[in-house]
């Protein structure tokens, strides 16, 4: 293993190179662009033997990925925000058509207003797309998760989105332990995959699903992502053993003896843990729960993690205007609804459009979660840091 200083984006580019992908079709958008720029360099110098297709839009990027994946190639693309939104119809098709595409989504806020900085609105808008969604909180995690994503995608035959926060993870330089290229090639050998468009079989792929069949075809994709939950855990366990890592669907910090906790996703996890750690030292019985596999949602692991908690704060870095709650809150609440014993849920929104979530913000969220736990009642959703 080599330890190098690099940004989250470059770490992903290295992962893609080591995965020996066959086709990369991508369109530039801040803050993902440096991933595909680095990959272009690799291809131009023969360090990665792949066809780099300079498509004219993200919609075409995903279209070309779908076509290439059907032909049996290992494919990769990257996007953010507006690009992801532009691909929206194709994301549903990629999962419905069971194409094992790996895509890095560098989380960025959605227009309007135009904003290039990070929040989770882009990925949340695609939570019903049928894609597996994994979340990375650092450059190291972005590297590891991308490598794992190829294994998962090709095993369960579903597309995988690797999310990580724009600028905070994508552009910040950190030390990254790169797995040796030989070990990566052993782990995810670049072997030929089935060509669904071979003249030998003459399949018709992407047919009309009339009312008497759409339901069953849709259910197949639902069943596939449900079953992938177990496979993802097995793959995580195997990856952890091989490369001495620690990945799980749900990660917990200081939960032993905790009475209240905050749920986080992505880069905010690190900051939340620092604040929670300090509060622990002051005697607060507080922990942090972070979600790494968002889809399929790890309901059973989450229920396990929150057992015994009196209060649970849920941090949304995206909003559902007009909804009964914001996206992550909705998922967590639905997950816990059937439990006889469950903590009081307190909803927060923070970090929208690249707004920093400060230590003070975390302290106030944890305070509010504690109050909810003690009083037995949650306050309405708190928009942390919003200026009136």
């Amino acid at each position, binding site marked *: 293993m080599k330890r190098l200083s690099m940004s989250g984006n470059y770490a992903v580019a290295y992962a893609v190179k080591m995965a020996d992908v066959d086709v990369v079709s991508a369109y530039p958008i801040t803050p993902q662009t440096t991933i595909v720029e680095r990959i272009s360099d690799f291809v131009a110098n023969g360090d990665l033997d792949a066809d780099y297709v300079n498509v004219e839009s993200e919609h075409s990027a995903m279209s*070309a990925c779908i076509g290439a994946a059907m032909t049996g190639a290992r494919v990769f693309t990257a996007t953010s925000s507006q690009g992801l939104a532009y691909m929206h119809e194709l994301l549903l098709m990629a999962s419905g058509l069971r194409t094992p595409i790996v895509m890095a989504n560098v989380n960025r806020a959605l227009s309007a207003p135009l904003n290039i900085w990070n929040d989770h609105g882009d990925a949340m808008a695609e939570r019903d797309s049928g894609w597996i969604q994994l979340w990375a909180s650092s450059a190291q995690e972005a590297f590891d998760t991308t490598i794992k994503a190829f294994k998962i995608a090709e095993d369960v035959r579903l597309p995988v989105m690797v999310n990580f926060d724009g600028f905070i993870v994508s552009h910040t330089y950190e030390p990254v332990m790169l797995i040796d290229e030989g070990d990566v090639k052993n782990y995810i050998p670049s072997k030929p995959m089935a060509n669904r468009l071979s003249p030998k079989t003459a399949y018709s792929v992407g047919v009309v699903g009339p009312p008497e069949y759409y339901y069953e075809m849709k259910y197949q994709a639902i069943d596939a992502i449900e079953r992938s939950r177990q496979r993802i855990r097995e793959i995580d366990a195997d990856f952890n053993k091989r490369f001495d890592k620690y990945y799980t669907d749900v990660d917990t910090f200081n939960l032993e003896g905790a009475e209240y906790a905050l749920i986080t996703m992505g880069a905010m996890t690190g900051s939340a843990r620092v604040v929670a750690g300090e509060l622990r030292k002051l005697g607060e019985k507080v922990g942090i729960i972070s979600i790494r596999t968002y889809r399929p949602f790890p309901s059973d692991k989450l229920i396990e993690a929150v057992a015994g908690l009196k209060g649970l704060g849920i941090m949304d870095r995206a909003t559902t205007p007009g909804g009964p709650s914001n996206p992550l809150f909705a998922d967590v609440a639905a997950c816990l609804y059937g439990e006889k014993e469950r903590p009081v849920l307190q909803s927060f929104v923070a970090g929208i459009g690249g707004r920093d979530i400060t230590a003070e913000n975390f302290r106030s969220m944890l305070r509010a979660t504690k109050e909810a736990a003690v009083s037995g009642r949650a306050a309405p959703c708190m928009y942390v840091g919003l200026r009136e």
Partner: protein
Amino acid sequence: MSTVYRTLKDVPKEELLAPGHRLCAGCTVGTAVRQILKASGPNTVVVSATGCLEVSTSYFPQSAWRVPWTHVAFENAASVASGIEHAMRALNRKKKSDEKVNVIALGGDGGTFDIGLQALSGAMERGDDFVYVCYDNEAYMNTGIQRSSATPYAAATTTSPPGKLSVGQSTQKKDIMGIAVAHGIPYAATASPSYPFDLMNKIRKAIDVDGPALVHVLTPCPTGWRFDVSSGIDLGKLAVLSGLWPLYEVVDGKTRLTVQVLKRYPVTKYLELQGRFKHVKGESIEKIQRIADVMSEKFGLGPVRQ
């Protein structure tokens, strides 16, 4: 250049478009696709855009395709074709596969001229090696005859209906061939299933050329153009013989007429058979005749017969 189709003996007998598809009776797209597949052979992948052909040939669990086929969305046949083409190229180069298959993207005029134009332009600019066949029935037929930018001047459609304030379609067809040629692609051609040998030779040339090729096929639609279901092939001939649909090819930027018309029919002979033009009066007819005259001059066709 490989096979030249001159006589019936040169045409492969294998039917790669199976019967039992749901295209309207008399739909010349069926005829065109049969001819296209005879020229391309079984070693072909077809990418269909959403449209008449796609829904009629792939209604689960029946498929009319005897070659590998895919459909993804309405506006991206060209980009999906790019993906397939690049995948095959990369897999061949990396010795992960030895399959080398002709890629043909098949889009209607809607999925090509309008919503699909961006993807087509991108694929042509990149020089991806595939054939894009546009089957042009001059409107969004699958959704019930709405106008597209391929609808000819004065034609009636549901979104360009003639009325007190309207002549029907107020603009003439977009010059998709001109747009394609402007991208510098090595081969582009117009074709008609009414001229099968001309069509098959063009498809063969398009496949053989290295890089993107566009073949623009006029496919008369009995439902949308409102003519007798038995007249599709005859009507296609009249389109050519009136000068409104010159059959030509552009090889590396050089234009060559492939079917000469020494004495053109007046456009009225073509228009009078179609219900979509039955409202058309003197001034509009003159305008359509002028369109035919300009096309004929551009491509070197003969004068109107007296």
